[in-house]
């Protein structure tokens, strides 16, 4: 090849690089052959204690859910995972049609008119929804209810900081004004409780703001979709829908909105069309919203996102169907309520929000600092929940899923009971 190129040595091809900086000495670990690599990385993985090995009641935006065998099997088709953005639709119908399935399913779940092909994760989707609301309304202030999961609020603040958009963390919809571009809420909220979704929607619209709802897609197997409450933009994280944990990422953000806001939507969108012979096919569409066409006037800078995980969601939902999804949601609901009832009956423990409707996550107040309760539980190989004492005094957030059979819940109850009495 060098002869064809017309150079004697490959170093000639790098002649444009300033000579004084060429060929630096890089202090990297020595190369590993495949067998050694696998051995070393397996040892590194063994330093972790994954859920499954530990009994987990951790939530806070991600939780252990069942990933049906069919999902990794389909995702492992290298025709899917070694392809890229479907710029050439004639040879990318697999990706495109799957994305169209995903968009359709997101619309059905949320009750919204249109959805995009996916965002990075739930929090960034929620943040982009707030930015989109400022673009739609021409207003600069973002209002978010204080019950939104703090990590999500932080992401909103980061995204908003770019253009210097103020973010108001409000306790009640009465604080909304006509300066607000949106009211952003989480349903169920960061403590697991259902907000009065319809009333909040009315309050948002009363000041001319958009109503942005971040929802739990698994809950939608059972509960009313945000569209029924008047949501204008709905976001969610797909983690529960066949994606798995992966220490928090990759997941996929779901993003849906009313049709009239379509042109403001960030992210890729797949549309149906026909080929020269009249056969139905799918293409990337409405690209004049996007950075590669519109550059600094694009609706967002988002480009590559999480297509493979959108496929995971589509496969998961197709495999479960409406009844399967409802069953998963019911398992989560009933087991969480069983756990809540038993924990509330333990001496010293009480529910932080008694009487509030919740799905599968609830906050309890512990008789001692949750840090100590969690440490005691971990000694029994139980991840008993998330310490939220920064939000609620002695607060512990517990999430129960279809992966926690009764025996695990009983173990949790027993562990919490013992932890209350244990000496620190």
């Amino acid at each position, binding site marked *: 090849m060098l002869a064809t190129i017309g150079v004697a040595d490959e170093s000639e091809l790098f002649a*444009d690089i300033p000579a004084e900086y060429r060929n630096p000495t890089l202090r990297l670990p020595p190369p590993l052959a495949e067998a050694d690599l696998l051995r070393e990385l397996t040892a590194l993985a063994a330093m972790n204690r994954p859920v499954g090995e530990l009994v987990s009641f951790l939530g806070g935006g991600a939780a252990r859910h069942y990933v049906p065998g*069919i999902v990794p099997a389909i995702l492992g*088709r*290298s025709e899917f995972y*070694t392809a890229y953005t479907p710029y050439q639709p*004639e040879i990318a119908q697999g990706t495109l049609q799957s994305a169209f399935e995903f968009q359709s399913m997101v619309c059905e779940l949320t009750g919204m008119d249109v959805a995009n092909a996916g965002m990075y994760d739930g929090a960034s989707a929620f943040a982009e929804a707030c930015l989109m609301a400022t673009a739609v309304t021409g207003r600069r202030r973002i209002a978010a209810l204080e019950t939104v999961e703090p990590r999500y609020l932080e992401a909103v603040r980061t995204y908003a900081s770019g253009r210097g958009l103020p973010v108001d963390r409000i306790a009640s919809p009465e604080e909304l004004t006509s300066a607000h571009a949106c009211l952003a809420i989480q349903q169920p909220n960061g403590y697991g409780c259902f907000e009065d979704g319809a009333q909040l929607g009315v309050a948002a619209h009363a000041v001319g703001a958009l109503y942005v709802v971040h929802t739990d897609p698994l809950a939608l197997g059972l509960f009313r979709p945000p569209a029924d409450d008047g949501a204008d933009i709905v976001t969610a994280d797909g983690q529960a829908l066949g994606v798995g944990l992966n220490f928090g990422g990759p997941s*996929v953000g779901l993003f849906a909105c009313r049709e009239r806001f379509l042109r403001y939507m960030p992210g890729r969108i797949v549309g149906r069309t*026909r080929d020269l012979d009249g*056969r139905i096919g799918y293409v990337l569409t409405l690209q004049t919203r996007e950075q590669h066409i519109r550059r600094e006037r694009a609706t967002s800078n988002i480009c590559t996102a999480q297509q493979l995980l959108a496929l995971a969601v589509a496969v998961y939902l197709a495999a479960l169907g409406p009844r399967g999804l409802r069953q998963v949601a019911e398992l989560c609901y*009933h087991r969480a309520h069983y756990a809540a009832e038993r924990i509330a009956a333990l001496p010293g423990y009480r529910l932080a929000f008694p009487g509030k409707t919740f799905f599968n996550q609830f906050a309890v107040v512990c008789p001692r600092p949750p840090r100590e309760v969690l440490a005691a539980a971990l000694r029994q190989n139980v991840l008993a929940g998330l310490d939220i004492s920064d939000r609620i005094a002695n607060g512990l957030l517990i999430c129960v899923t279809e992966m926690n059979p009764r025996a695990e819940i009983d173990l949790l109850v027993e562990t919490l009971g013992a932890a209350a009495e244990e000496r620190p």
Partner: protein
Amino acid sequence: MTAPARLSAPPEACRDALGERLTFDRSTPGKQGVLLPPLDVPEAALPTDLLRDELRLPEMSQLDVVRYFTALSRLNYSIDTGFYPLGSCTMKYNPKVDEQIAALPGFAQLHPLQPEETAQGTLRLMYELQEMLAEITGLHTASLAPMAGAQGEFAGLLVIKAALEASGRGGRTRVLVPDAAHGTNPASAAMCGFEVVSIPTGADGDIDLTALDAALDERVAALMLTLPSTLGLFDRNILRVSRAVHAAGALMYGDGANLNAIAGQVRPGDLGFDVMHINVHKTLATPHGGGGPGAGPIAVTEALAPFLPAPHVARDAEGRYRLVTPERSIGRLGAFHGNVGVLVRAYAYLRALGAEGLREMSTAAVVHANYVQARLREAYALPYDRRCMHEVVFSGSKQRARGVRTLDIAKRLIDYGFHPPTIYFPLIVEEALMIEPTEAEGKESLDAFCDAMLAIAREAEEAPELLRQAPVSAPLRRLDEATAARRPVLRWRPDPRSEERDRGGE
């Protein structure tokens, strides 16, 4: 050479998967692909007023779902099925062992909020990856939080903005972006509240120094530069450029999309870059997934490190790894710690290569692109006639003169069994064809691709209609993208009438 039609008309099973019948149309009431455990606790009362009436999702058996999506997969072109020289995307081979490693339960089944002492393996991996990326880029510290290159750009520019403000240089409102840049650059700058000033590329392919100097003043926060550029060229004035930018009190942002050309050859930090992002799905061989997930870590100078996004992985005096928020962090970009599952693959790739392997990687990538340039330079116009780096940008201008568009050349390549290059980008090249062969291909596939390109150049002269009709051997012929955008149909509807309503509603 005749078209081999490697991706020939799909078998009937795939045809059936095509287009018309989605999962929803394959639904049979009562079917369910996965069974759930029985309820083993007492039923709690359901809040009936909050429940949904119906949920329209497909009802299918597991086998039906597998067959449907397997058939769909066969309609895709992918790296594992053929040569994929998509410029600027670095479609290199994705090592299978990396998939195996990422799927280890110790990595894959870790909850992001579990106690740090139960996640030391992953945290150590992340810490070491941060160190390795800092070493490769010649910068001080890396952050793994950004979930894609574009999010890395956004984070990197926010870091620059915060650092300038902290040093009393706030109020700088402009970001300079060369006209050859990726669209994400200006879009990210705009999301950070900056005004974008476009800087032209000189006739030799390097940035226009006169224009740069004229634009550099106290209003400028940063120059965003892709190195090598999207023309596949290494800017020969890079040191002069970074000196000028710094002299004006601005910072250098490096778009690492093309790091595959120079990794191990030169460290961008040595050339004056203050921040850069790395697309791990390009340079570090993590799979592209049909459009993600990728990851876009950023590396920065010591002065900028306190502003990095949250979280960052630190090692304490006892050798324990912890997630921390940098002192003056720009904040959180997502719910958790970045696309960790992707980063595991990137780490594994780097550990397999080592420093020498990294240099061999970029050397081979550059040799391959220059080989393609040498073989095709007679047949296709070369607007910037220089040695290239890891990719070569031709123009279809000769063929255009005969009424054949670059789009036609690209579509004809499909008939020859290849994925087309990136086309019509960079925007400054007329009828651009951007070819990035990567280091992973052997001479045989490079020759087969070049032979096809030469055959197509001849066809453009002798039988241009072949090109305009192409592709003829793909699952579908050319699609009507104009109608798709004019009358968007973006979701399945239960009956055609509501689809008509969709179309009418636009």
